């Protein structure tokens, strides 16, 4: 479980807080989507959960973040990292090895995973992400989307209990993005891994995330079950967060028919709503 209490963080040499009075609880096995306009503090939030703040990025830090009972300020970055896996937004900086297989090996070696377990972990992670064929390839010869998958595989191989992903589908086409989300859903449901994902693709968040947190200018402006948050579509749009078309549809239908319709989050729900109305 992750508990963030009144967290305010100001990066060194900056005046404006990147995060302000953040209060957020993510239950074990939760699937939280984080959305918000550019510069809202989403990446900073990811860094605070993964311990990079305050261990790598320093600055003025108020409040507390506890991960499974450990206060991230008092726990070493290494101990947090055993629990929390982080996929960076900029994959090219995250990948430090020149060959795919070595990138997966890196964390496994450092955290002292038993030798006999390592080959199986690598095979499994590559297979899950669907890049078993890239194992021997030089990272420089891969496309942006392939690199993104390598970065994800290298973290999954570590089997973290909590996965923090910062826009992991930026370089991927819609179909591959959906595959990544399906994989996260599988890990979340089968192994109860807590997932925190920062994402601009609202359509995917609506389908997969159980909770949503909306950030704007360093503050959480809305949080809760995805459907409840989406019920405030107009407020979100004013902040620069768009809603999926199906949500706009349920709103338009409510207005036009004069009957309040439940918020639709995906195609199936929208289809069911329309069929119910016209039958």
């Amino acid at each position: 479980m992750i508990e963030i209490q009144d967290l305010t963080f100001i990066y060194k040499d900056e005046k404006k807080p990147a995060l302000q009075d953040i209060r957020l609880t993510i239950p074990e096995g939760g699937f939280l989507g984080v959305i918000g306009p550019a510069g809202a503090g989403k990446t900073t939030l990811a860094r605070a959960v993964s311990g990079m703040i305050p261990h790598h990025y320093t600055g003025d830090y108020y409040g507390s973040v506890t991960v499974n009972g450990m206060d991230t300020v008092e726990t070493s970055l290494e101990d947090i990292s055993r629990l929390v896996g982080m996929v960076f937004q900029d994959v090219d900086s995250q990948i430090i090895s020149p060959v795919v297989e070595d990138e997966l090996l890196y964390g496994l070696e450092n955290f002292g995973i038993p030798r006999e377990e390592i080959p199986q972990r690598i095979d499994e992670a590559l297979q899950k992400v669907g890049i078993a064929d890239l194992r021997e390839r030089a990272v420089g010869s891969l496309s942006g989307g392939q690199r993104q998958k390598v970065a994800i595989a290298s973290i999954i191989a570590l089997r973290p209990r909590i996965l923090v992903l910062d826009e992991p589908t930026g370089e991927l086409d819609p179909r591959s993005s959906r595959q990544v989300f399906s994989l996260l859903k599988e890990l979340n449901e089968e192994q109860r891994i807590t997932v925190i994902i920062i994402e601009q693709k609202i359509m995917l968040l609506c389908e997969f995330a159980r909770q949503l947190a909306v950030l704007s200018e360093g503050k959480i402006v809305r949080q809760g079950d995805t459907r409840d948050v989406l019920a405030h579509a107009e407020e979100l749009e004013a902040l620069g967060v768009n809603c999926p078309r199906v949500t706009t549809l349920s709103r338009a239908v409510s207005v036009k028919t004069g009957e309040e319709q439940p918020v639709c989050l995906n195609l199936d729900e929208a289809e069911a709503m329309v069929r119910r109305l016209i039958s």
Partner: protein
Amino acid sequence: MINLDHVSFAYPEQGPSVNDVSFRVEDGEFVAILGANGAGKTTTVRLIDGLIRPTAGKVEINGTDTVTSSVSERARKVGFLFQNPDRQICKNTVREEILFGLQTVRGDEGEEALRARCEEVLKDFGFSGDEEPFSLSRGQRQRVALASILAVEPEILILDEPTTGLDYFECCHIMDRIRRMNEENRVTVIMVCHDMEVVLDYAKRALVMAGGHLLADGPVKEIFRDAALMEKASILAPQMISLSTRLGEGFEDADSPESVADAVLALRKGGARHA
């Protein structure tokens, strides 16, 4: 006018290639190129601007084969907005950046005229001109890049995933500006884009690619309604189109939340009359 005549391109090692692609784009069109990662979309737009040369076939712009002139000479006519604005921006202020682009291709018009044009563009985009590009957000930097390309007033604008990594507002800013160029100045737009909602909202014609081949070419809405084609090209159609295709009769023309809602209303009234 842009004309691709049986164009093929193969990279020396791996990488997506383009295989025997032919199409023609008239002046003032707004065309989107769709397809999965590795379908050959980016390769195609790079071929159009001559950043790479076809291994077979030819590319013509306004009737002239692109191999007869250099890419830099073409910059006056063809603007290219890349996915990553940081590769383009090289000056310390937004004003210098825009001026640099102008001086490079319109240097013959004299300093005075270029400065005036620069101020006009700054005002149009709402920049003061003194901003440091690298202290701006990614979306703002993309707007700087777009401003410096539009300042030159190209006839053709090529966009390679221009909205990747941008939030919703930033995306709308960029795309609305491009639409205005297309409608008011009749600038031809060719865009590679992964966001099908953006394609539906802005583009009029779509080219569908897969494995380096051109699979289909037609009006955006018709293309999206072809479920078999979408499947073959690994494209997920925009939500409202998928929905109306699923719903069938009575929703043939619905492609936005508004029009679907209207269709619902019409069917309900119609249903009431029957009952």
